[in-house]
């Protein structure tokens, strides 16, 4: 990476020096031409003056014309022949034109080179910066569950807690580990999505069935948190998406909803869908903790956790990796769909809308 940079900078320097040289050459040639033309003009002026002197001294006009063929005599007045004046002018013009075209072309070519190299340098710097901030964010994100793990372990070591308290600590540690594991998976996923190294298929999928599969997997957890999930999606709505991507997107949004409702101490999640113009919209409404609409603008950005409050005295809380909704948005963009979130405010629930391109029922 570093050697590439040195190479690019060297190339940039060479090109800039060349451009300056071409510029100088252009200026120099122009100045030279002007100088030569002026010298010629001065010589002709000398001839004209000599011719005039001859005329004034009584030399016949024909004799003067013989001696100085570039001079024409009209009456008693000697002057430079218009053809000579014209030729001088044409030559000056021709040369200047030539330099302007040649030099201009080189300058343009070099300018393009400079722009290309500078752009590459800037793009590279941006990539490096993004990588740095991504790494900083990732390590930062790991420190909180790590701190929690260490605290739980050291608490056990220091206080030798009773079995019941120890159980709480162990559950906490397991949850922290699970969270870190989820983070690793999601970080890898988001990096893969960012690099564009995903081959997404476009298949016709029946929305109700696809969503129901995710709901089944989440039902047990939802029941434990006193959450009811109502799937009111009508059968027969087909969307165009990659089956795995659809699964990931729906799971992330539903897990989010479950966590938000769990935080509020239980409630409902309602799923519905409708066919729009060329698309099918899935709506996920929950009665959870919601979010501040202003902060909601950042909801789909990397590592945004709007950090809803943990229930008083409860051990659980709203736990995100800050990558789930980022992945959702990336996948939805790749699937030519869209995703939007809405909440009236903290404590007022939230609704997510996912829309995919509509598809025909697949032929058997």
């Amino acid at each position, binding site marked *: 990476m570093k050697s590439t940079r040195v190479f690019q900078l060297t190339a940039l320097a060479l090109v800039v020096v060349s451009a300056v040289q071409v510029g100088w050459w252009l200026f120099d040639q122009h100045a030279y031409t002007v100088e030569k033309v002026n010298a010629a003009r001065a010589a002709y002026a000398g001839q004209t003056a000599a011719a005039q002197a001859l005329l004034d001294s009584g030399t016949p006009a024909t004799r003067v014309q013989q001696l100085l063929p570039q001079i024409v005599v009209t009456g008693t007045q000697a002057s430079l022949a218009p053809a000579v004046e014209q030729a001088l002018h044409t030559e000056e013009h021709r040369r200047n034109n030539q330099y302007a075209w040649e030099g201009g072309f080189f300058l343009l070519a070099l300018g393009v080179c400079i722009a290309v190299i500078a752009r590459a340098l800037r793009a590279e710097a941006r990539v490096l910066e993004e990588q740095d901030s991504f790494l900083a964010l990732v390590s930062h994100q790991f420190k909180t569950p*790590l*701190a*929690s793990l*260490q605290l739980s372990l050291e608490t056990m070591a220091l206080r030798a807690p009773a079995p019941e308290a120890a159980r709480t600590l162990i559950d906490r540690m397991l949850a922290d580990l699970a969270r870190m594991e989820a983070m690793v998976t999601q970080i890898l996923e988001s990096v893969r999505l960012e690099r564009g190294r995903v081959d997404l298929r476009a298949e016709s999928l029946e929305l109700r069935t696809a969503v129901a599969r995710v709901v089944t997997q989440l039902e047990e957890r939802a029941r434990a948190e006193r959450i009811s999930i109502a799937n009111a999606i009508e059968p027969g709505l087909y969307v165009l998406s990659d089956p795995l991507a659809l699964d990931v997107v729906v799971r992330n949004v539903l897990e989010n909803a479950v966590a938000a409702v769990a935080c509020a101490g239980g409630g409902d999640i309602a799923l519905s869908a409708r066919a729009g113009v060329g698309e099918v919209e899935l709506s996920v409404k929950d009665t959870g903790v919601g979010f501040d609409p202003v902060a909601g603008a950042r909801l789909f950005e990397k590592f945004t956790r709007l950090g809803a409050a943990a229930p008083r005295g409860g051990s659980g*809380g709203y736990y995100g990796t800050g990558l789930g909704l980022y992945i959702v948005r990336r996948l939805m963009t790749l699937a030519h769909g869209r995703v939007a979130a809405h909440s009236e405010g903290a404590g007022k629930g939230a609704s997510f809308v996912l829309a995919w391109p509509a598809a025909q029922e697949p032929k058997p």
Partner: protein
Amino acid sequence: MSAANAGPSPVLVVEDDPHLAAGVRENLRAEGYEVSAASNGEEALAWLREHECALIVLDVMLPGIDGLGVCRALREQGNNTPVLFLTARGDPADRVRGLEAGGDDYLAKPFHLQEFLLRVRAILRRWDWYRNASATAATAVLRFGGNEVDFRAFRARAWNGETQELTEKEAMILKVLAEHLGEIVSREDLLERVWGYDVFPSTRTVDNFILRLRKRFEQDPANPKHFLTVWGVGYRFLIEDQP
């Protein structure tokens, strides 16, 4: 606080991660502190409007107003409750930012439980010392060169009649210097007494605080009469009337 009232020292824990918050809370309770909790900055500020505590354990990365913002807001309101920052970032620049926002100490995540408890005790001990050292009418007020410092109110009237709100660090430095009137106090001693151990990356911070004190209380800060530099060692504090 323990000197002022016999009950356990109330500590407010402000942390948005529920597991970490629970762990910190339980451990502080086990040490005999009375603990309250808040999970974001707004909640913490609201709680502090109605309650008092001896120490705030404050996470830096909070949703909404972050920890630094909470600390700054408190200091602006004249609330001098000591703050121990917890943060996932531990590089020196971040430490300095935290301490400049008015924090007393700074602990990077993940941290050791014993060290955390030690630091909590150290901060509370420093404040006990300060309160005890400002407890009597004679020690609560310091007069020098036309300035009058009220250690209990963290307020001073300067020689030019201006009222000066002191930060707790400024007040503590003044207290240490006043306790050692006319003696040389080293920068390290000041760090140790006012900030505790290994908090600051350099002793230059002490110099900055002395500069601030000179600006507040010296008629000509460039030619100090009270806060004298002893080159290479530290500082000496003089009350004008005394030799």
